[in-house]
């Protein structure tokens, strides 16, 4: 925002004193109300308005406090913004960035704990990234803002308290590039967002049963870095995908099917997809605990899958 006067932030409560869990703190003082726009509760119009400013060269960072609210802006995003490039005969790009925050836990319940990125990933012309740590949160956001086309950045609120090194200078994390966060030899575990730390927590237990797992942080849902995944599976011959949403249409399904398409012969066993259960998460603590995997339940699932052959 300092470097480029066309960049601005907009969304419900972006200038709020709580700073959207600290993510927008200080921006209003630094850049003023013209560039840190609190908006009416009008997701569909606000997304279209962001697109309209982008059509004239501005670079909006539209923020949804909860990804759940994005459903109120589906038409403007999916029928208009994403298709703008095509509908202008590929003559006009639309540099729109959307930040959508995933909630989870503390009884937030069904409508405040969704992570339905597949709805948007279905469309050609959108890019979707999901940082799993502060380093990539900055790098991917910068890359998203600089990208000439619509990019959706999925942030998990439960990760905001996790510390990671963040260089002071401006840097970009390339969109479409996964990252191996732990090298291994027996199996490849591909995961993203808030499941990355949980997967890393399973490693000692897996190690104890003789499994040295390679962990890949997807970072980018669309475009998908199949090169990194395939290179890893080529060496390990086993694939687990730990996803953050329901199975139908999820990236877990996509990755599993692509690996079967391209690397069938090199697989020791069918890929394992670990998605959210086919259900909604109730508000009670016991329901939340049985809904989300922790390191123990995740280890158990992986162990049973491994032992099946």
């Amino acid at each position, binding site marked *: 925002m300092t470097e480029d006067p066309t960049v601005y932030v907009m969304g419900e409560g972006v200038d709020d004193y709580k700073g959207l869990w600290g993510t927008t703190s200080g921006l209003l003082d630094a850049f003023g109300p013209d560039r840190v726009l609190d*908006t009416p509760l009008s997701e*569909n119009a*606000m997304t*279209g*308005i962001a697109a*309209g400013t982008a059509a004239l060269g501005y670079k909006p960072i539209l923020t949804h406090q909860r990804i759940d609210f994005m459903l109120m802006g589906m*038409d403007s995003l999916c029928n*208009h913004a994403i298709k703008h490039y*095509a509908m202008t005969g590929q003559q*006009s790009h639309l540099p729109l960035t959307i930040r959508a925050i995933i909630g989870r836990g503390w009884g937030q319940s069904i409508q405040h704990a969704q992570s339905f990125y597949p709805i948007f990933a279905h469309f050609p012309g959108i890019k979707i990234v999901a940082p799993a740590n502060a380093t990539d949160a900055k790098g991917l956001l910068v890359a998203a803002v600089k990208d000439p086309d619509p990019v959706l950045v999925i942030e998990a609120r439960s990760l905001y308290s996790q510390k990671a090194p963040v260089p002071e200078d401006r840097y970009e994390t390339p969109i479409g590039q996964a990252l191996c966060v732990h090298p291994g030899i027996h199996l490849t575990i591909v995961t993203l967002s808030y499941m990355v730390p949980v997967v890393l927590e399973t490693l000692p237990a897996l190690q104890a049963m003789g499994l040295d797992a390679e962990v890949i942080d997807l970072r980018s849902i669309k475009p998908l870095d199949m090169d990194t995944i395939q290179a890893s599976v080529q060496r390990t011959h086993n694939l687990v995908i730990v996803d953050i949403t329901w199975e139908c249409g999820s990236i877990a399904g996509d990755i599993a099917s692509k690996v079967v398409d391209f690397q069938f012969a090199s697989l020791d066993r069918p890929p394992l997809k670990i998605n959210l259960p086919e259900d909604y998460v109730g508000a009670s603590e016991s329901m939340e605990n049985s809904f989300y995997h922790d390191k123990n339940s995740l280890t158990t699932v992986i162990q049973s899958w491994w032992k099946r052959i």
Partner: protein
Amino acid sequence: MLPHEARTLYASLLKIRIAEEVIAKHYPMGNMKCPVHLCIGQEAIPVAICSGLDHHDFVTSNHRSHGHYLAKGGDLLALLRELHGLPSGCTRGWGGSQHPYAPDVGFMATSAIVSGGIPVATGIAQACKWQKKNALSVVFMGDGATEEGNFYESLNYAALQNLPILFVCENNGYAVHSPARKRRADGVRLVDIARSLGVVPYEADGNNLVDLHTLAQQVISTMRNTPHPCFIEAKTYRWKGHVTPDEDFGPGYRLQEEIEHWKTHCPIQLFEEYLLNNQIMNDQEMRMQKASMLVEIEAMMEAILLESKSPHNCIAPASPY
């Protein structure tokens, strides 16, 4: 208005009417392989509104876009090519009739999703306000669009931010085949809705070009002096069907008498009376202008037919994604 202005407006009216009639005539031959939503009968509105705009102002439109595109200064040949799906069309074959594109003259976006262009136009107005170049954003919509949430949300935001946007509703009483009385409670007026959202409303006879022109000039002038959103409801009527080149009284959703009645309020005939009464043009001049324009547009169609047979115009481009 001054005589030369009147002649310019007349030429603009004729261009839209004759182009649409030529399209309607050629459509059954099947060379324009896309749905066309013709604006015959509604021409006065875009002509009047756009007479107060220049290339630096912006227009956003809907599926019934030809009149808006041409009145704003969009190239007719490029539009006709687009209808034929040619890469030389204004949208390179991607948009067809519903998505013409002419950024050089400020024709920025259209939407085939009713009301979809309204927020985009509002965003363009926001950008205009930030850029401080005294440019305006105009969005054309039908009465159906005023039922969508986009309408309320956008007017609310435009009023909140005092945006230089002109919302123009071409109220022709129909959303496809559904009349207004089935979509909105009796007695609810669009100008009242706009006013209650904080937007300055105006009501007009959409087929009276002279009065509409005066109103448009006045409204646009106030908007340039002090940026603020305005709404013009212009009552009009479409002669042809929603998406057919025929006058579709056959199916029964509207009566032939209704179409015939509105034809007696033809915006072009009304303006011709004005031109005659004020001795700006005579009968012969008008007939000759129409004839030569018809010849010109028919020649364009012939050339385009040849162009569309060329093999390099029949290849689909690769996906950029």
